[in-house]
């Protein structure tokens, strides 16, 4: 492969899994680092002692203030506990909650336990792992696309979601949906007007689009969820409350 002449003598698939993929990964990494760095601004210092800590003055107070174990613990536990809110809070969001779980879990199963995906990663990582039969992966793909379509319809129809949705939500939905669609069409050989390799090329390109869009849109939530949950957990823990 002559990268200097990649427009010539290169199929769409070669382009997609070659230079396009490499550039997408580079943009993804640089973008993510840039956006996360921008979040690390000067943190405001709180002068109030945390719940249960002694008041100012004395070595004990100083020692307690410099390492707030309660906040650290509160922040870290919230990373997990926020995934399962208290019943009285969760009872009204059962559908959103479980549909969200269902499609995210499904996505990870497809990504890591689908044989072609495993082989792709194995090429980079140098080792393999067991995968699930193709029909199961196809099943999860159909389930995921179904849930995503329902969630999309919900975003269009639910008054609360309509009120708070932005262009980012719709772009991110399309970007997230396309890899499942193109992957499914490749595997199922649903390749109208094109050969299998071209469809696979489109699948790669849809992943490239996802990688490029990731740092700039709401897909970034996959990363910012952790500092955000940590911070809310620590803020509540400071006041002696489990978040």
């Amino acid at each position, binding site marked *: 492969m002559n990268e200097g002449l990649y427009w010539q003598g290169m199929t769409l698939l070669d382009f997609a899994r070659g230079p396009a993929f490499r550039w997408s990964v580079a943009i993804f990494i640089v973008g993510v680092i*840039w*956006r996360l760095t*921008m*979040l*690390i*601004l*000067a*943190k*405001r*210092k*709180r*002068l*109030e*002692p945390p*719940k249960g800590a002694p*008041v*100012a*003055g004395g070595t004990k107070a100083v020692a307690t203030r410099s390492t707030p174990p309660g906040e650290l613990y509160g922040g870290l536990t*919230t990373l997990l506990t*926020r*995934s399962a*809110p*208290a019943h*009285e*809070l*969760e009872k*009204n*969001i059962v559908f*959103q*909650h479980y549909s*969200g779980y269902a499609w995210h879990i499904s996505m990870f199963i497809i990504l890591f336990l689908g044989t072609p995906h495993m082989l792709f990663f194995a090429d980079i990582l140098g080792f393999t792992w067991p995968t699930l039969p193709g029909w199961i992966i196809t099943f999860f793909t159909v389930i995921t696309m179904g849930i995503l379509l329902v969630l999309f319809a919900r975003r269009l129809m*639910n008054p*609360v*979601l*309509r*009120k*708070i*949705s*932005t*262009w980012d*939500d719709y772009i991110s939905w399309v970007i997230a949906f396309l890899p499942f669609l193109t992957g499914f069409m490749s595997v199922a050989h649903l390749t109208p007007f094109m050969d299998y390799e071209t469809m696979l090329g489109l699948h790669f390109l849809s992943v490239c689009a996802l990688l490029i869009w990731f740092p*700039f849109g*709401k897909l*970034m*939530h996959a990363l*910012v*969820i952790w500092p*955000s*949950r*940590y*911070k*809310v*957990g620590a*803020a*509540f823990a*400071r*006041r*002696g*409350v489990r*978040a």
Partner: protein
Amino acid sequence: MSATTIPDYGTLGQRAAAGLKPKGLSDEQKIARAKQAFIAGIDADMATYLESCIHCGMCAEACHFYLGTHEAKYTPIFKTEPLKKVYRREVAPMRLFNRLTTRDITISDLEDWKELAYDSCTQCGRCSLLCPMGIHIQSMIQVVRNGLAAAGMAPAELQAVSDEQRDKATILGAGPDRLREAVERVRAQGIEVPLDKEKAEIMVLSSALDFLKDEQLLGATARIMNKIGADWTIRSDGFESANFGALSGDKPAQRRISKRVIDAAVATGAKKVIVAECGHAYPVLRWEAATLYGKELPFEFLSVSEYFGQESKAGRLKLKKPSGEVSHVTFHDPCKLGRMGGSFDEARELLGAIGVKLTEMESHGRTNLCCGGGGGVSMLQSADKLRKAAFELKREEVERTGAPTVVTACNTCLQTLEKGKQWLSWDKEIVNLVQMVSENLD
């Protein structure tokens, strides 16, 4: 022992609003000031929250105002929209691109958000417990209030009292003189009140709102403090728990008002400052005052129920159990003391010491449903309809406990529950925890 001891906050709000002096700012000045306050409020934590929203709308399902009305505009995160816009356009790493997709805030945005940031948010913090991304929405809404107040667009009821309290250290004309009169009336009942002692271990706060109508609460607090045998005082130069600067969102006023309390406590050499049963006052003093003051404080702030609960647990406050029938109560956790303050067990310790039968509501402790009156909302007549809708949820939860009595530890909650009782011709008895304790001293 009920809300008859405190005045109607809505009426007070109306009285105050009539005296408001407008700031006379142009629309451009208002927008510029609001933006400046928004940007000043965006620190690393706030930026993380602003970057994190996935627009899932789940926060709506935690909010009593949304649940009570099912109007999409009351979705908590939507109440922060002007702040989000300013963040996207002025601060976010994507700001150059965002300026193409996000329009700037306008004067009508700010007008519209008055209702959303004030009338329809009690800053109870419940939404911050449900957000799957962990966004502290309540703290963002306070920044929206800061922006609106800086633009001179806080509700007149709150801004007028905030201005008065900032400049004159009075609330609706009630200041040190009215306190002295109230203390005299308490003393006339044979209750000792150490007013303006030069030095004391404990400085107790009151509130003009507590003695505008009568002095029962002041008397009840004094009786308990004397029973504990504490070395305490109440200072006429720093007795006010309430902070209308915080409620209106006027941050410079908030700083000045809380500084008075700090200065008085430092002058007294107090080790503990006991905040009266005034919901927002506790988190404002306990969690914000030192940072605004710029120094760590040599004393601790405790809410009155928190302190009495601790004293009861330590055996220094002895309470008697009734000899007759045990009364059946449910406890309404004030959001500002519980979820936003971390004090849950102390009130229950007191109820246990008194020996009542306590049945908890489905949402209690950290997930408690707000009564709908906090954050200054009880003073806004424009919020009456919303409060009624939100109160219905509270009523349902109370009803399900089967308890004939609701006890609470915040006068704003007490006022709101009393108001709800009036609206619904409800047969529940609403009881103030401090008064209940003072009536059961051993």
